[in-house]
């Protein structure tokens, strides 16, 4: 088989840099102290300002206690037992697909993921994922022409230090919460996007097309800056379940939208939820926040969460600019022993700011799901409006759905709407579908997809199709 020059270049460059030895020597021993933070920064050759930032965050983190208000239960995490600088692909990883959990492989096949990609996703060292490499190369050229910066945040620190210095931590400060502080101290890598003034990003940006983004480790950091009048759509994650050796994930995502700018951030999260007893699944503790800094700016979060043992995340919008708009569309699925406490915060500061929240929670098996949302209208936010719709769907009788809406209104001109429903897939609905020839599973999948339609409609086309498929697979066997 003859490889293309681009692929050969990558294969060779890995050897050139002594790929394997580097991993072995660069995995730190478990434990976290100031020395570890300094070592991470040194290893990445970071400028002084970033080291200072990390240290400040670390010192603050030491003063914090683990938050306990979320409606989730898990054993205490020993933060000294985690290695804070390690390449996730260790030499102990699987050598071939035969070593992968057959259930996982079946899912890959159902999703129609090509074999090379299955290997990459499940952590088997492959030379290159052929399609993605070539796609990534062409995409980069096109983006550069438009003036859009799309790179690893570790690269951006060196190539665009001023932008990083100006924006990093400006939306989610290191003092924000326990996990945000931890992330700021030890973040491994992540993505940086910068869209210059008036530029409409010529394509959907996706981590899917950036191979190195797959190995950003457990403390991922994302920063997206949209200058005045610009527009960008970013897709995070992919529908395939990813193998990961890190149990704890504490990512931080910061979005900044200036005057008339628009950022659309879509996530499909499908991490390992653990086995049937709930062992070994990923803990996903994420801080995501968008800052509508400019007038008439808009930030829209869309998420489809089907994976992880525990999900703790609240993508939020700070509506500072007058007439700015925040949106949150979410589908979260918990099955087996999964737990999710998720929702959003819409903080209305500017005049005539508007926000929309549509949350669809689906629980099956013994899954526990909580919607937690805050809508705050500040005293100066004259004419602010919010519409919240929060629907839960229960499948079976051992799961749970909980809703905790918080509403704080300090301006009498505010218009608030809150709708909440909890429903079960009724026997009538199932029988109706089955009497038309559909199997129970197809019926459930159709009813659930109907339930989620409002959210799927917000996803970019191909993503929506994948998400639907993913949902069907996730709920297979959910009804006995």
């Amino acid at each position: 088989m003859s490889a293309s020059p681009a692929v050969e270049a990558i294969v060779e460059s890995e050897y050139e840099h002594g790929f394997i030895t580097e991993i072995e020597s660069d995995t730190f021993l478990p434990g976290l102290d100031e020395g570890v933070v300094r070592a991470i920064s040194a290893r990445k050759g970071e400028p002084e300002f970033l080291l200072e930032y990390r240290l400040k965050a670390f010192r603050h983190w030491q003063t914090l206690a683990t938050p306990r208000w979320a409606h989730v239960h898990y054993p205490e995490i020993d933060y000294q037992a985690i290695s804070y600088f390690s390449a996730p692909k260790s030499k102990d990883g699987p050598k071939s697909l035969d070593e992968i959990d057959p259930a996982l492989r079946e899912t890959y096949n159902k999703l129609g993921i090509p074999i090379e990609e299955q290997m990459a996703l499940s952590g088997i060292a492959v030379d290159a994922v052929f399609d993605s490499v070539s796609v990534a190369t062409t995409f980069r050229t096109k983006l550069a022409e438009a003036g859009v910066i799309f790179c690893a945040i570790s690269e951006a620190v060196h190539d665009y230090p001023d932008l990083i210095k100006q924006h990093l931590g400006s939306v989610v400060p290191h003092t924000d919460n326990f996990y945000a502080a931890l992330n700021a101290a030890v973040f491994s890598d992540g993505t940086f996007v910068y869209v210059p003034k008036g530029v409409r990003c010529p394509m959907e940006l996706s981590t899917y097309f950036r191979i190195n983004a797959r190995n950003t480790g457990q403390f991922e950091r994302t920063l997206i800056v949209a200058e005045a009048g610009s527009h960008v759509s970013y897709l995070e994650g992919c529908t395939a379940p990813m193998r990961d050796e890190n149990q704890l994930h504490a990512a931080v995502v910061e979005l900044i939208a200036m005057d008339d700018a628009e950022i659309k951030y879509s996530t499909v999260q499908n991490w390992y939820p653990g086995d049937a007893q709930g062992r070994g699944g990923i803990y996903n503790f994420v801080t995501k926040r968008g800052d509508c800094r400019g007038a008439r700016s808009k930030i829209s979060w869309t998420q489809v969460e089907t994976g992880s043992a525990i999900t703790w995340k609240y993508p939020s919008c700070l509506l500072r600019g007058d007439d700015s708009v925040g949106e949150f569309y979410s589908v979260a699925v918990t099955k087996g022993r999964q737990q999710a406490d998720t929702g959003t915060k819409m903080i209305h500061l500017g005049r005539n700011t508007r926000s929309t929240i549509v949350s669809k929670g689906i629980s099956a098996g013994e899954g526990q799901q909580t919607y937690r949302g805050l809508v705050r209208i500040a005293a100066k936010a004259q004419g602010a409006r919010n519409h919240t719709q929060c629907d839960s769907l229960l499948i079976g009788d051992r799961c749970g759905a909980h809703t905790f809406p918080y509403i704080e209104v300090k301006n009498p001109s505010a218009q608030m709407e809150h709708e909440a429903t909890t429903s079960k897939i009724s026997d009538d609905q199932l029988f109706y579908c089955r009497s038309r020839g559909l199997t129970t599973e197809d019926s459930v999948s159709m009813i659930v997809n109907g339930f989620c339609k409002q959210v799927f409609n917000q996803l970019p086309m191909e993503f929506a199709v994948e998400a639907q498929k993913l949902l069907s697979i996730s709920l297979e066997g959910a009804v006995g």
Partner: protein
Amino acid sequence: MLSVKGLKANVGDKEILKGLDLEIGRGEVHAIMGPNGSGKSTLAHVLSGREGYTVTGGSVTFEGQDLLDLEPEARAHLGLFLAFQYPVELPGVNNTYFLKAALNAIRKARGEPELDAVSFLRLMKEKLKVLHLDDSLLKRPVNFGFSGGEKKRNEIFQMAILEPKLAILDETDSGLDIDALRIVADGVNALRSPERSVILVTHYQRLLDYIQPDYVHVLAKGQIIRSGGKELALELEDKGYGWLGAEEAA
């Protein structure tokens, strides 16, 4: 094609069907009439395989197969169709999408090739024409927010697309005004064919003014107590169910 022999069925502890016999041949239209609580809807549900009913005796064969052993979807694959008395709402599920999935599930089970979007749309247009319906219902979620008449029309439209061998219409006339009734009845008549049998379950003779049955059966206390031609329905209209000693059945 359908042979029901000595069928007994319970809901909970209560016996509703008490040894019911019914023979339906290809292309025949049978009306099953009876007072409230006589077991009409139970019969429709037991035939289509709804949960919550326990068959305690008797047999049902459809096209030579034991129907009672089959899951509801397998009965649909064989060519059985139930038009619901109360069609169920499926929020967010597009009507066209639903019907295409249903038709293709049936075709697949029969080993026929699935229809692609273009062929399916063509089929839909054709059926709309036959039934004199417009396409306004097709873009909406299944039965969601439909009026009573729209729901019943949608059932008939589904029947037209799925082309069953045996259609059971469970009190399709209930809750319809005279105009809606006429539209639904015209639809059913347009779908009559020598290949398609129909069971009309109804309380009133009114529906039979529009759909002429070949046979009329009177169901009371879980049994068929009288069978005859369409003149039996007229007699019932005149004399009431009490005439047959069925009045205390409820």
